[in-house]
């Protein structure tokens, strides 16, 4: 199946020196796919999200939507509707002076130019589908809870009738009880509308819940790709292992703690922290990342899928990272 959204050798640099935020990265999103991107702060995942959404141009490489590069897509081009984004801060993403209904109607009027009354009618219907009461629709963001604001943000994205939803930490600002409502809503939207989702999150359990495929980012590169459940059951890259093993209630995974300036310019950016580092790791960029069992990891000494899975040491409720 052809990808509707595709990143080809995308690099983004901020400023002239220092390592790139995103470093020669490839990613394809097929129609209806659920792709999770996990990584720590500074790994470049939000920069990637903004480039995928077409709001930040890459320094080199190309992001294509429906086969056309974002650079060739005009602001009012209908192609732009196909990729929409929801944000981490549900309040900050909304105009404080507009009611929930007007915030959604604004998007509908921009794209479809219906009458004012018709736009409001469609906005109300969409917000009702998102579970907002008629009373809440008339309120401005400050009068809404975080969960309600996130529903408005999702309604604004859906008003464009997108094929892909880019969700950058959509639930990290929400309480657990409200997070579950939003996650269930996103699962339902994927099923009902065949929506593809690119989920950026530091919360591995959220990624596990919402996506079928996952990619782990470290220092601007994807270091491991796998079906989501496989990745968390038996991580192949030492970094993924460290990440999964650090979740409270999980064990396994380790890192070097001693500072080692000798490997600062190592082609494997995880090398300074990697417990499996060896002399031949220097060839990591030319090493074949395809592993037995259909797994993929940019690592010369990966944990092969047969390795012992990471263990649960207790009933594990979270998975927050």
């Amino acid at each position, binding site marked *: 199946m052809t990808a509707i959204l595709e990143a080809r050798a995308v690099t983004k640099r901020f400023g002239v020196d220092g390592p790139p935020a995103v470093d020669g990265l490839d990613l394809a999103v097929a129609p209806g796919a659920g792709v999770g991107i996990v990584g720590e702060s500074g790994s470049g995942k939000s920069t990637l999200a903004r480039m995928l959404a077409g709001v930040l141009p890459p320094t080199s490489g190309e992001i294509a939507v429906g086969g056309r590069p974002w650079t060739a897509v005009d602001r009012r081009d209908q192609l732009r509707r196909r990729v929409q984004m929801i944000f981490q801060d549900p309040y900050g993403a909304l105009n404080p002076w507009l009611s929930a209904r007007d915030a959604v109607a604004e998007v509908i009027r921009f794209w479809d130019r219906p009458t004012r009354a018709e736009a409001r009618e469609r906005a109300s219907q969409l917000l009702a589908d998102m579970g907002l009461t008629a009373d809440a629709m008339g309120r401005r963001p400050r009068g809404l809870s975080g969960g309600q604001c996130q529903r408005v943000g999702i309604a604004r994205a859906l008003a464009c009738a997108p094929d892909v939803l880019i969700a950058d930490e959509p639930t990290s600002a929400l309480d657990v009880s409200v997070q579950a409502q939003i996650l269930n809503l996103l699962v339902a939207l994927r099923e009902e509308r065949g929506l593809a989702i690119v989920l950026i999150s530091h919360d591995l359990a959220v990624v596990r819940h919402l996506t079928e495929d996952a990619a782990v980012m470290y220092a601007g590169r994807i270091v491991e790709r796998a079906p989501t459940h496989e990745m968390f059951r038996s991580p192949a890259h030492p970094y993924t292992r460290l990440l999964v093993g650090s979740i*409270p209630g999980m064990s396994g995974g380790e890192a070097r703690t001693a500072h080692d300036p000798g490997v600062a310019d190592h082609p494997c950016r995880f090398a300074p922290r990697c417990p499996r580092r060896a002399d031949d790791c220097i060839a990591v960029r030319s090493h074949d990342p395809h592993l037995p069992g259909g797994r993929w990891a940019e690592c010369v000494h990966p944990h092969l899928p047969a390795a012992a899975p990471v263990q649960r040491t207790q009933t594990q409720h979270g998975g927050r990272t």
Partner: protein
Amino acid sequence: MTGPLLDVRHLSVEVAGRRVLHDVSIAVDVGGSLGIVGETGSGKSMTCRAALGLLGRIGGAVVAGTATFAGRELTALSRDGWRAIRGRQIGFVPQTSMSSLDPVMRIGRQIEETVRVLDPGADARARSLELLEAVELPRADRIVRRHPHELSGGMRQRVMIALALAGRPRLLIADEVTTALDVTVQRTILELLGNLRRQLDMALVLVTHDLAVVESSCETMAVLYAGATVEAGPAGTLCTAPSHPYTRALIAAQPLLTDGGPLASIPGAPPEAGTPHDGCAFAPRCSHADGLCLGGTLALEPVSAGHVVACRRVREVVR
């Protein structure tokens, strides 16, 4: 001394005429560890403020209940009385390390200043290096010359812990200290707090919204909802066999790494802090509630040894 080190009972607090805490009871033993869990507006941070005597600064006051530390009543303390407790007996690590450190002062001077106030007999310079080593920061001699912006989030959080240890407290209260950190850094900070607790025989109160953090790091746990303790007991019991409908719903609402099935979400949202209510504050969102839950008064009742629950239908709920 017998009895808990910090013992808060039926604490009620008002801020600007709004009752933000209704009935908070928490206890932590000498050298023990307690996790306080709750969502936004549940009163976690307000409880910390009360235990540190910091309510006055936001126009708040204790209107009912008691809080004792090592047998001494805290709610009636004068400003001078608090000075002997805050920092010296009870240390505090706030959530925001960046805004709590002076951005234009070197780390060393900030710690030395604190040491001079809280531990005047000590050699301030030597003691600050000792504190930085205690929080396992490598090359303490270099860290003291840095400014806060030159340190990573995890390193700054270690500096905040070092500051809280300056007065050699018997209890450390840590408010959401790992919330803004990556999971790998979170693990090292939680391990550090556990090590310090054992080495210094210091009690720990960990305030968080993350149940998994409490389960892995604390012996006991208290769950707060809308300004009241709804359930308290051994952390393992509360996480595996919770009794209060809210605790049960909270656990069911957490996405699991091992299972991708639909989540049991809790309808509605937690009430804003200070919203008045009758009876059980959770009743409007509770699937077990009946009409009687919306009135009357609630008290924490024991369900097993050291395990208390505030729910009038708890017997039907756990059946």
